[in-house]
């Protein structure tokens, strides 16, 4: 069987479909759905018989093909003009195939470029200056990727109690943003009122997060809140004066 070796080289159902179209020398704009569906399904059977893991996407496309096939078998609805751009049930699939094909070609052309460390090489050795450390500039640039940061966090968390893994939700992070902002202003201004914290931006979300941030800060014993009279302005102070490491 010539296609045995082909089984696991498909990048997905669209890739398999393109392969069948090419193999049968079929016009992609006029796919004989019955034939292709039959071949596609027998490939899936073959894959199964070899106990290859069939990704769910293969089955989804199988049902799409069967659906298109059944639609094509139905006589056209009455009153539907012949010359009208009638909806070919295959149209969406063809569009998807063409798009995928374009990217597949793009991937191949990327691979044909002179690739670094495969076809071209840069200077191998570190220069003398790199070996001796350079004094750090004042406003140092840091080169790091956000993905590295999450990966680092995950690496630590994985070793811990499962409870720690409770997801970080974006709500908590929005709250933290507010907390940082409030503490920054407190350090600058010494004290601040609730109204000042809100400023001109008094949308609902901001009011809620500001309020929650203050509660959190009080719970953490990082700020104290004072009110001179009932319904009077609430003023916040840092719980402990002074900064710097002690």
């Amino acid at each position, binding site marked *: 069987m010539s296609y045995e070796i082909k089984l696991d080289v498909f990048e997905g159902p669209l890739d398999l479909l393109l392969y069948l179209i090419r193999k049968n020398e079929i016009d992609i*704009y006029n796919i004989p759905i019955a034939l292709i569906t039959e071949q596609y399904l027998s490939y899936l059977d073959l894959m199964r018989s070899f106990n290859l893991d069939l990704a769910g996407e293969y089955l989804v496309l199988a049902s799409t093909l069967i659906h298109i096939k059944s639609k094509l078998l139905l006589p056209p609805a009455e009153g539907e003009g012949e010359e009208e751009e009638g909806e070919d049930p295959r149209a969406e699939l063809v569009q998807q195939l*063409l798009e995928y094909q374009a990217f597949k070609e793009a991937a191949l052309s990327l691979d044909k*470029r002179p690739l670094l460390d495969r076809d071209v090489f840069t200077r191998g050795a570190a220069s003398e200056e790199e070996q001796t450390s350079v004094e750090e500039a004042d406003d140092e640039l840091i080169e790091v990727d956000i993905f590295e940061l999450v990966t680092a966090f995950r690496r630590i968390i994985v070793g811990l109690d499962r409870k720690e893994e409770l997801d970080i939700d974006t709500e908590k992070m929005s709250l933290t943003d507010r907390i940082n902002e409030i503490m920054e202003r407190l350090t600058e201004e010494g004290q601040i009122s609730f109204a000042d914290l809100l400023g001109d931006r008094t949308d609902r979300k901001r009011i809620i997060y500001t309020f929650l941030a203050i509660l959190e800060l009080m719970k953490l014993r990082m700020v104290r809140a004072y009110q001179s009279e009932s319904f009077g302005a609430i003023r916040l102070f840092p719980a402990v004066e002074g900064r710097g490491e002690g």
Partner: protein
Amino acid sequence: MEEKIAIIEALLFASEAPLTVERIVLTLPDTEKKEVVSLLEGLIREYDARGGGICLREIAGGFQFRTRTDLSAWVRKLKVGHPALLSPAALETLAVVAYRQPLVKAEIDRIRGVDASGALRGLLEKKIVRIVGRKDVPGKPIIYGTTRKFLEVFNLKDLSELPTLRELKDLQEQQE
């Protein structure tokens, strides 16, 4: 040789990443951008004409010395271990990201017809693809894009140097 060219050559050689014209201008006093560009162009021509083992190329928005492409087999012989090649799945995913960026994973999955998680992760680890931000829609999905390293690895000046994607002909047009 003019001293300025010698300095630029030394800077190019010492820099780990492709060196931008701006950086050169910052390092050399009393030098205009235009002058640097023309000196760089002169250097490229000189090395090309010489036909030696190295050439100067414009990559990822900067300039960098590289070995001549047609000598790769010799250099590979010297280097131990093989370069980590990108799998077809990774290349396809990368192509989609490169041409459609910034984009979310769901769009990659849709175009490729399979889940791109594994391939995407590999590309993130290799720093060829990066997280650009989040899309301001419900669920705030992560947006991906290519990195400067992508340009360096694939020998590209900038993204506009990518060959154009084959035109997706409109189905209707084709049928006429």
